[in-house]
């Protein structure tokens, strides 16, 4: 609790609070000083008042002493005065003397109010002489102490002295009495410094006598306001106010200076630092003076500005770097097109922009046909140029607002918003035309470069739908690549049943499991009829993989294998599985087996090694190696060398799916091929009456004439069988002859087929 309280108290405060606190402390100190000064002044005044009171008493005592002295002097003068002695010796005319001479002869002080002489018995000479007696008629000669008496409202001070005739005061001849008007004497004798004479009062009743020694205590008076102390007090107060005003002015100026020179710059610096923290920092302007008044603050400002400048520079550099990085990250360096990351970002951005609004989207995937063969044939440099050419032609086919992405390798994509299928198809066709018109021969590519386009459409796109539509477009694109298919394929759920196995995790797992354990492969064998003998000469081994929902067919297997580059491993597994079938003796003796080997497999050493394991079987079985022309043009030299070696060992080499790819007769003539298997699309065209049938027939005859044996696939009718027989095909294969069947039913099929 205490700790938190202390922390709360010690928490940072704005400097203005400290400045105000300083000002408050200063004012408090000033107030304290004022209180101290006023208290001290009051104490001084009290001390002075007490001192004045004492001095006033002393002053009064002094005056009374002076009065006494004056009375004594008057008594001495009187005793020296012949006329006074005359009156004591012969007071016959005392009245005259007292009235006309005593106070007017200049012997006695004029301040004397009355004087009277007394005989040795203390009797007033006036008692025996006519005249008004202003003095006591009788004095007590034994007690002649002076006293003050209040008479008729006036205060009189009486002195009595013995009167000697001679100067050595041995001859007493009487007494003398003086009366002074006390108040008048006080005022006349001297100017009072401490006693306010107007306030002097004698506390005495009428007729009451107060001995002289008790007079001062009986006086009531006020002290005169001490002009010096008053002046001193005024001086102190004035000085204090002057100092206070000076201090206040200095404090105010200091406070303003503090605000101007420290607090405001500090606030600006603080605000600036805060803004920097929020990323809103700008360079701090210097003040109109050119610099902050406080050196340290100016240094901080300059340092902050330097840091800010550096940060800005860094920020600009980072922005440029980010832009560059973004560009690098979102663009394909080869073509300058947006890349896969840009594709994903755009998709998410598009989705965010239309989060609550359903929108239609069409994804077009472009893929170059046989690019790998082109790349392998002409080298990567030409392959890159082909990719650039494809990018250029595709980009030219799209609208300016449509973005073209290179998703990887030879795969391109664009997304069309708010577009229907028909328009997408038009765009795809325009792209195909642009690609066809592009002159790839400038790069030395002799074969035509074509693309396949897969189109997928979504009416209500969501973020997750990207994967879905992409997969659908992928499936459509592979569908488009299939031999005999149009180069533009629009995804439909039907094509998804087979193709979607491509991305089925369970089926993919089954493929992997089969590759790990060839026994998991289930080989079906389709008979190939030798037309010249009407006998089943050999069987094409077709792979199947048992799956959760039945057999996984090649149409679903090979896209996965090719997509993941598993051709060699898969070839090895299939070869091993077939070898085991042959080794088990379940394949009828004399019956041949046709083995499909992928393009990568034909140039792979392990696959070739595996094939060499078949050599002992050549004595009992006819072994045909079927390779696609696409496979052959990949590393054609190595492929040709391997095929020649295998051919020398006794293998029959068949060119599979002739007519679905390049179908380059140039290739055919240079390859060690014994059989040419016409693709099913070519064979089926023979059933139609058109130019293509004629062309296929002529082609068959030409290849036959060149010394090759021909195999017709897809023979599903007797008419077609007759037709290919008539064209000179040496072998035929198809459902009409025999469906692919497991090994267990191979004999039956064979027999039926033979039959």
């Amino acid at each position, binding site marked *: 609790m205490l700790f938190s309280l202390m922390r709360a108290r010690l928490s940072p405060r704005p400097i203005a609070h400290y400045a105000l606190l300083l000002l408050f402390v200063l004012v408090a100190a000033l107030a304290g000083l004022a209180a101290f000064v006023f208290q001290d002044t009051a104490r001084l005044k009290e001390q002075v008042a007490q001192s004045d009171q004492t001095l006033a008493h002393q002053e009064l005592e002094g005056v009374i002493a002076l009065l006494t002295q004056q009375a004594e002097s008057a008594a001495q003068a009187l005793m*020296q005065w*012949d*006329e006074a*002695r*005359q009156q004591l*010796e012969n007071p016959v*005319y005392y009245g*005259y003397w007292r009235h006309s001479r005593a106070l007017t*002869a200049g012997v006695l002080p004029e301040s004397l109010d009355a004087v009277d002489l007394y005989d040795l018995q203390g009797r007033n000479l006036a008692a025996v002489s006519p005249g008004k007696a202003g003095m006591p008629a009788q004095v007590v000669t034994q007690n002649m102490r002076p006293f003050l008496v209040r008479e008729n409202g006036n205060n009189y001070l009486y002195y009595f002295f013995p009167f000697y005739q001679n100067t050595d005061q041995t001859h007493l001849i009487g007494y003398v009495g003086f009366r002074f008007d006390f108040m008048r004497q006080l005022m006349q004798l001297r100017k009072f410094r401490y006693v306010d004479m107007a306030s002097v009062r004698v506390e005495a009743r009428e007729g009451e006598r107060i001995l002289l020694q008790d007079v001062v205590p009986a006086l009531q008076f006020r002290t005169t306001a001490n002009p010096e102390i008053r002046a001193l007090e005024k001086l102190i107060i004035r000085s204090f106010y002057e100092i206070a005003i000076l201090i206040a002015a200095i404090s105010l100026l200091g406070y303003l200076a503090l605000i101007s020179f420290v607090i405001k710059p500090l606030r600006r610096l603080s605000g600036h630092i805060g803004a920097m923290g929020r990323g809103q920092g700008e360079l701090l302007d210097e003040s109109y003076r050119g610099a902050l008044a406080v050196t340290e603050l100016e240094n901080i400002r300059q340092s902050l500005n330097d840091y800010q400048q550096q940060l800005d520079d860094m920020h600009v550099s980072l922005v440029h770097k980010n832009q560059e990085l973004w560009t690098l990250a979102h663009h394909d360096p080869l073509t300058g097109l947006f890349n896969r990351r840009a594709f994903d970002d755009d998709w998410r951005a598009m989705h965010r922009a239309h989060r609550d609004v359903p929108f239609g989207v069409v994804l077009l995937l472009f893929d170059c046909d046989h690019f790998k063969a082109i790349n392998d044939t002409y080298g990567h440099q030409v392959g890159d140029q082909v990719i650039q050419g494809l990018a250029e032609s595709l980009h030219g086919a799209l609208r300016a607002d449509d973005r073209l992405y290179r998703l990887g390798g030879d795969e391109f994509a664009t997304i069309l918003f708010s577009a229907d299928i028909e328009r997408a198809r038009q765009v795809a066709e325009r792209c195909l035309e642009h690609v066809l018109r592009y002159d790839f021969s400038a790069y030395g590519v002799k074969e035509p470069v074509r693309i396949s386009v897969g189109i997928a459409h979504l009416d209500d796109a969501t973020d997750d739908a990207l994967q879905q539509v992409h997969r659908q477009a992928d499936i459509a694109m592979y569908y488009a690549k299939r031999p005999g298919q149009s180069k533009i394929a629009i995804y439909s759920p039907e094509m998804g049943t087979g193709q979607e196995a491509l991305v089925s995790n369970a089926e993919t797992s089954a493929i992997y499991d089969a590759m790990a354990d060839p026994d998991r492969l289930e080989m079906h064998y389709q008979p190939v009829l030798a037309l010249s003998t009407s006998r089943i000469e050999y069987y094409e081994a077709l792979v199947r993989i048992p799956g959760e929902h039945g057999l996984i067919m090649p149409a679903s297997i090979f896209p996965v294998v090719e997509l993941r580059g598993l051709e060699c491993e898969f070839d090895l597994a299939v070869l091993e599985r077939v070898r085991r079938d042959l080794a088990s003796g379940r394949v009828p003796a004399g019956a041949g087996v046709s083995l499909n080997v992928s393009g990568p497999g034909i140039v792979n050493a392990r696959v070739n090694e595996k094939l060499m394991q078949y050599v002992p079987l050549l004595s009992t079985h006819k072994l045909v190696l079927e390779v696609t022309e696409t496979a052959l043009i990949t590393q054609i030299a190595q492929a040709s060398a391997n095929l020649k070696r295998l051919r020398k060992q006794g293998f029959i080499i068949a060119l599979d799916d002739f007519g679905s790819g390049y179908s380059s007769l140039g290739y055919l003539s240079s390859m060690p091929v014994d059989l040419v298997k016409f693709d099913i699309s070519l064979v089926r065209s023979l059933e139609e009456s058109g130019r293509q049938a004629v062309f296929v027939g002529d082609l068959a005859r030409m290849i036959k004439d060149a010394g090759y044996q021909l195999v017709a696939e897809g023979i599903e009718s007797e008419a077609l069988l007759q037709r290919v027989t008539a064209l000179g095909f040496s072998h035929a294969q198809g459902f009409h002859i025999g469906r692919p069947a497991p090994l267990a039913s191979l004999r039956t099929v064979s027999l039926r087929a033979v039959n």
Partner: protein
Amino acid sequence: MNRNPALLLAALACWLIALPSFASQSGLVEARLPSGKIASANFQAGKSGQPAVLILHGFLQTHTFPTIVSTMDALSTAGYTVVAPTLSLGISRRNKSLPCEAVHLHALDDDVAEVAFWVRWLMQKGHTRIVLVGHSFGNLQLLAYLGRSPAPAVKQVLMISLTDVEVKQNAQQRAGLAQDLRDRVSRRDHALAEVEFGHCKKYVSPPAGLLSYMRISRQTILDSLAKSAVPIEVIMGGKDDRMGADWVEKLVSRGIAVRVIPGASHFFDNQYEFDLQEAVLQALPGR
């Protein structure tokens, strides 16, 4: 104040016997008068064989009057025994001049008695030759003394600035005043008279006392001078404005030797102080 002079003299003699202590060599001496008052005098003893000099001050003055002091110093220096008494004027130990306005209880007879007292005092000191020196009104008191059986030892009288009493008031005025005073006395009116007398604008005195002085007139002065058995010499200031212009002539016409010091005033002040001293010394015998 009408007293018998013989009685006064007898009393004075008794007091002189009773006051042996008053005798002294020099300085201020005091003596109790027959009246009981104590009188004082400045006494300076001189050389033996030379006459003693009594110097009497003017009206209401004392022996400290400058003219008196100066003359006394000169005589004392010259070896004379000098006594300068201060007339008491009815006041014991009177030591200051008595103002005109003071109550004057003294009379001419009292003054004459005191002169006689101091003459006898000198005689008691063995002086057989006494010279009386008066100044101003003191000369009139000396004349009164001379007119009343002066001591045989008085051999010479020297009067300095002899006063004419009829300078301020003429004879008629004085006669009127004297008559008024006599009337008061006759009807026993002892109330103080406050009148102009001599050089006093207001002289306060019982009628009898003042009347005693009113008996002196110019004529009585001249007559007294003329009838004096003791040789009298007068010294006058040439510019004494207190006297009438013919005063010296009147004196001379009465056969009085008058020595006039030109330029001197009534008081022989300033440088005439020395002229006066020289004149006094020249006038005294034994030189």
